[in-house]
């Protein structure tokens, strides 16, 4: 049986319609892999684009960040800290988009840790579609830590 990462999922500070993580495949000190299926009912498909729904790049970036940075960050912090006052914020993103992601597609995000120091987490992320084709890739960074009272 796969190791349970429910405790990480439960710590994620997102909810519908802005939660873009379904499942974590693995996470360790060096990186994380997770997946998400874009619901065809998502509101943004009504406007992006008119009569031609394609997942917006910012949403792909967000999905990469939620899996690649936040899930990993929670794992790295959670090993030694109680995460009651989690503070997070994206600080930079540099992404390239190679293939479109259509409504209903399931994607997998693979993230490799560059560094996590002084509360700054930086990762190299790659997103693949169900055919294992690279959809987008880039470097994301954010600040993540437990906020002191």
């Amino acid at each position, binding site marked *: 049986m796969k190791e349970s990462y429910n405790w990480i999922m439960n710590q994620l500070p997102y909810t519908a319609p802005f939660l873009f993580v379904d499942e974590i495949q693995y996470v360790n000190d060096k990186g994380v892999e997770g997946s998400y299926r874009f619901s065809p009912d998502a509101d943004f498909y009504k406007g992006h684009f008119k009569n031609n729904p394609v997942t917006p790049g910012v949403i792909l970036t967000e999905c990469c960040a939620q899996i690649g940075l936040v899930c990993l960050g929670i794992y790295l912090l959670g090993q030694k800290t109680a995460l009651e006052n989690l503070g997070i914020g994206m*600080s*930079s993103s540099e992404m390239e988009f190679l293939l479109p992601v259509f409504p209903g597609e399931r994607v997998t995000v693979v993230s490799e840790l560059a*560094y996590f*120091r*002084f*509360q*700054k987490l930086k990762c190299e992320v790659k997103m693949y579609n169900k055919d294992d084709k690279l959809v987008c890739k880039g470097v994301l*960074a*954010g*600040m993540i830590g437990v906020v002191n009272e």
Partner: protein
Amino acid sequence: MLNEEKYQKLKEIIKIYLPEDVAVTDIDQDSHFMNNLNINSANLVDIVLDVEDAFDIRLENDDMDQMQTVNDAMAIIDAKLAEK
């Protein structure tokens, strides 16, 4: 290493992370990274990591907390170099 040399080396690093509305000439020894140079906490981490590489030292969380101004950074670099 001379103080001036250290200061120039540090300035070269800081320069990379300055926002567009701050000029290199705005940097002086009393400059506060966040308040005067408009450097955010994420970029301050990058400065620290670059300083570590440039001077071959390692900073800890306490050093990071104390590093508010360019002078603070100089003092921390001096202390770390002295420990070596």
